[in-house]
């Protein structure tokens, strides 16, 4: 236990000296206009380094999903900047758009396993498409590569030939991971990936994510309302409440010595505490 944390700490220090892989600076997202306008995210800054797993915790309506969508370019922020590998990807000031060629570096897994796969594409096709777009392979090669990725996620060739509707929630989420890995990304954002799958499937998925982080050096931003998951998977955490980041720091510190009353409330609400 101590060895592991010491090792993680060492890694952290190393990373702190280099610049962050993905960085969101003072990101604000406002929905609506005029009297009906409301800030989903207010001046939130997050960073993630290569090989690091960072958590964003908060309840529904805290803005955590909106923040994640801003980081991958699905949501245009009303203010702030997104930097990737020291290069500005998006800046609200200049209305600069994220170039398509940069998109592959940040990938995302979504919350709902039932709508995150195209119902009219076979499982292997969904992955092979991503492979083909980014790796310049022939159709047959892309298919092989897709099956390899799927197998690594515990999806058999037989299951890969199916349409998504005959897969369980947990299997679909693993297919989503395989698809997200196809362009060989540097950052993976997981938005509550386990909230609607069974507990045994959840453990399989978490193991997968953890290995991707530790073995492939993938940076992971893990979004959840469950502090237990965040504690297990991440080394740093941001706590969000109603659009604001109210607390940030090393996961262990935040959980052991919360500074903000909202963090304390979240900790107290974990079942079994």
């Amino acid at each position, binding site marked *: 236990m101590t060895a592991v944390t010491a090792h993680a700490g060492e890694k952290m220090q190393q990373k702190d000296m280099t610049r962050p892989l993905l960085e969101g600076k003072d990101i604000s997202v406002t929905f609506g206009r005029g009297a009906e306008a409301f800030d989903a995210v207010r001046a939130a800054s997050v960073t993630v380094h290569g090989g690091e797993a960072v958590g964003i915790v908060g309840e529904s309506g805290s803005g955590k999903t909106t923040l994640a969508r801003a980081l991958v370019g699905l949501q245009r922020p009303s203010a702030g900047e997104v930097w990737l590998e020291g290069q500005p990807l998006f800046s609200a000031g200049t209305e600069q758009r994220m170039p398509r060629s940069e998109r592959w570096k940040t990938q995302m897994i979504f919350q709902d396993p039932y709508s995150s796969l195209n119902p009219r594409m076979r499982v292997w096709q969904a992955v092979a498409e991503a492979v083909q777009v980014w790796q310049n392979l022939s159709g047959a090669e892309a298919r092989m590569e897709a099956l390899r990725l799927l197998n690594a996620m515990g999806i058999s060739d037989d299951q890969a030939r199916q349409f998504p509707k005959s897969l369980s929630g947990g299997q679909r989420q693993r297919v989503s991971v395989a698809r997200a890995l196809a362009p060989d990304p540097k950052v993976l954002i997981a938005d509550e990936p386990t909230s609607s799958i069974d*507990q*045994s499937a*959840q453990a399989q998925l978490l193991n997968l994510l953890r290995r991707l982080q530790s073995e492939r050096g993938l940076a992971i931003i893990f979004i959840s309302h469950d502090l237990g998951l965040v504690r297990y998977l991440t080394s740093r955490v941001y706590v969000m409440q109603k659009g604001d980041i109210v607390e940030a720091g090393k996961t262990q510190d935040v959980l052991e010595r919360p500074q903000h009353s909202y963090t304390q409330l979240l900790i107290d609400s974990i079942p079994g505490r």
Partner: protein
Amino acid sequence: MCQQKEREIEPLLEVKDLCISFGKGGGRKLPVIDAANLSLDQRQAVGIVGESGSGKTMLCRALIGTLPRHGAGIVSGTVRFDGQELAGAPERVWRGIRGREIGYIPQSSLAGLNPVLTVETQLVESITAVGSFSRQEARQEAAGLLEKVRIPRAQQVLKARSHQLSGGMRQRVMIAAAIAQGPKLLIADEPTTALDVTIQREILSLITQLRQELNMALILVSHDLAVIEEVCDDVMVMYAGASVEAGPVAALSKAPRHPYTRALRVSRVDRAVPGQDLEAIPGDAASVGSWPAGCRFWPRCALADEACRRDTQPALMPTAQQLSACIHAERMAELEQ
């Protein structure tokens, strides 16, 4: 007299070897539950834990007599409640049981309230179903119920419709409706699944308090063992339509006697060590219609051997302080290494 005596030792609810199938008539029956066992005393709280497809919701429906609405029916087994046999009971009997004797909080707080009616209308229905109340009295009673479930500004909420309420508020209203007729048993089917963690905590403690105040027994269904450990005295674990382990919460958490129960515990992240793999159960849960022969859990079980594959689903047998449906219950220590 004799009956009186019997009642004292008889549990409030006893489900024995319950089998439930989809479809009517002979030919095409699809079993969803084939060996559910559950026993609970007055004022006791029992949890039912299981993953999706394990049959826990169907078991609840059997306990409130709404299986036919879902195209299912009891094939065999008994459901004794308060000295009365409910399996196969006619609708007339159920009318005296539902709401009055057994209260029910449905799974999703979003769809539990009729969107076109006010909260008041629905609560008043609940109240007037048991006794004769004047309109005024019933309204007062409804406001009282909302206070009981700790809803502030009760008058405002009474006039609201479901889309005007937050998820937590809706679930409180559902609880109010469930306790309106003073039931002996409250069944809550995943009452907090769609809610935020902080709200979940509030709802669970509300249910616990009400149970004590009103002397109710409680059946709490959840996919989360931690939730059940917090609220319940006993727990029953279901896998693929069968009860696989049952007993006191403490016994099941300290020394589970079924590999599935153990797997549910060790695959949890709460006490896992960061940086180490979780002990995940391999494979996928057996789904309705494709249960394996023999013990349902064998394809995912480390203890499985020829005997597990060959026989039928084992029955619950006493072992240590609990009941287990594993023929290798005594070998469970092996898994702890």
